[in-house]
């Protein structure tokens, strides 16, 4: 996914002279071909994320279109004030390409694990937040970034994620994709949780539970219309995210449902990482599994939640 997104920057640069690549101190050879073809539009500016964001704002004020790229935690935590003030307050078209969203850098520990990035980026007015699910979708997504007004935070997974998106799904920023029609349950996913949702849906089908999947690649602006359409008739809405429980996809879905439905809320299950830093290493898969986000665990959690929703009426103050 990362290589695809990077190569798309080169392709877009060939097509549109506004496009710049700005890296801090990326891996050796990142976009080498672009650096040869467009040396003046391939900028490596050092481990200075706060400065890079401000500089990108200045470039965007003059009509240029910077694609800024580094590791997700550095692109969010380190320079949050510059992102808020220089990019979002001025509503400038800078694209933040965040490597290693979620637990991609599991073995490198909590400084490199972007587990709250969706929440803090989503909180900023004017910011758009996109989490593509695979390399093919990342390519379709990047095509849409040339003319989108305002800043975009792009949360990339690692390379080699199974390709589950299809060309016929298309891609439009802010438009969710119904990957599987809704049944007893609707799973709402973002990023690479889509692959796990497909596997969980197959497991559930074997148990006679029909599970739909709504892929919310754009977490902000949220496609509330698609959400409201997709939850019709379902007994349970389950959100899946590689993120802490606060402020991410599950929060966004819950907020939208509360705002639109008020009292008539469906039963909800929010599956996420716990509200703590990870102190285990291993791999993205092993950490997701440890925290209940493997396909097996997702299917089991959904079965339990469905059973609970059948046997208990909603209580405002459960005892």
């Amino acid at each position, binding site marked *: 996914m990362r290589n695809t997104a990077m190569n798309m920057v080169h392709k877009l640069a060939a097509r549109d002279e506004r496009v710049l690549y700005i890296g801090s101190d990326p891996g050796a050879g990142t976009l080498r071909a672009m650096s040869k073809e467009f040396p*003046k*539009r391939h900028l490596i*500016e*050092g481990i*200075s994320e*706060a*400065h*890079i*964001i*401000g*500089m*990108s*704002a*200045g*470039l*965007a*004020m*003059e*009509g*240029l279109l910077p694609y800024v790229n580094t590791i997700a935690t550095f692109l969010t935590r380190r320079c949050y*004030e*510059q992102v808020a*003030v*220089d990019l979002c*307050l*001025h509503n400038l078209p800078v694209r933040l390409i965040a490597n290693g969203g979620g637990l991609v850098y599991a073995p490198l520990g909590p400084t490199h694990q972007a587990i709250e990035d969706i929440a803090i980026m989503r909180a900023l007015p004017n910011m758009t937040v996109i989490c593509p699910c695979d390399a093919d979708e990342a390519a379709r997504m990047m095509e849409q970034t040339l003319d989108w007004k305002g800043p975009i935070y792009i949360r990339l997974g690692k390379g080699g994620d199974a390709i589950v998106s299809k060309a016929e799904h298309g891609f439009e920023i802010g438009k969710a994709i119904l990957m599987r029609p809704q049944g007893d349950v609707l799973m709402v996913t973002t990023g690479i949780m889509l692959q796990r949702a497909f596997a969980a849906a197959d497991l559930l089908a074997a148990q006679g539970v029909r599970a739909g999947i709504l892929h919310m690649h754009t977490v902000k602006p949220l496609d509330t219309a698609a959400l409201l359409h997709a939850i019709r008739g379902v007994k349970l809405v389950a959100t899946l995210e590689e993120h802490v429980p606060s402020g991410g996809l599950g929060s966004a879905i819950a907020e939208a449902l509360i705002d639109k439905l008020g009292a008539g809320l469906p039963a909800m299950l929010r599956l996420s990482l716990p509200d703590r830093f990870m102190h285990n290493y291993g791999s993205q898969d092993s950490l997701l599994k440890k925290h209940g986000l493997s396909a097996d665990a997702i299917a089991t959690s959904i079965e339990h939640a469905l059973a609970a929703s059948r046997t208990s009426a909603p209580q405002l103050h459960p005892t």
Partner: protein
Amino acid sequence: MIQISPHAEAALTCTLDERSLYLRRLVLGSVRSAGRGHVGPALSLIEMVRVLYDDVLRIDPTNPRDPNRDRAILSKGHGCLALYVLLADRGFFPLSELDGFCGPDSILGGHPEYGMVPGVEASTGALGHGLSIGVGLALAARMRERSYRTFVLLGDGEINEGSVWEAAMGAAKHGLDNLVAIIDYNKLQSYGPTDYVLPLEPLADKWRSFGFAVQELNGHDVGALRTVLKQVPAVPGKPTAIICHTVKGKGLPAAESNADWHHKNKLTDSELDAIRVAVGDF
């Protein structure tokens, strides 16, 4: 320790001409109307902003978005009253707007906002942002083969921020001789002396070692400011840093070098009387 600079001594003793007094009356009139404002930081800046807007910037108040205009960013956004009075005086918006400073429907907030105030190039207030934005503007000028220059006004307390020095390295890397950093070196930040809060010296050497061509002067000397600001870049191929030795609160004896006047709420009758004595009736 702060080095004793002849420019710093000159800043303390130099007198102000009628235009500088007039601009101070406008600033203090806004503070009186609003019942608040950053007085000290604005008064140390006035001559720098005045010379920029009167004599240096290639700007047209009737066409504030002219692509070829020079860009000026007030990175120390809390000094905005100095900027507002110059913009109003130069006709970017009516002088009457100054009376509404910080009011609920005013375009003039306690920090300047892009899109709200004609002539303001960037929203500032959070410190340490302006020089990086300036690097972007200056780099864009080179990429787009435009001849505009970019001037960034920084506070001395502001350059405590590490991002300023990241930007300085970036400006030097690109050899941005179309970028000018102007430092308001009044040696007094919100809590107290810069030398106490976070020592900056040797300040000129710092900027020099970061790759800038450095000039130092008395930041209240209008003639010296004109000379230096009209001769940028100081060295071709290098960004320029102009260290302006100033006096916080310059022009009001009670406010000069007095941290209590960094931000002022309602002015008392006796303070207003003292202001009239210092800068004239307003």
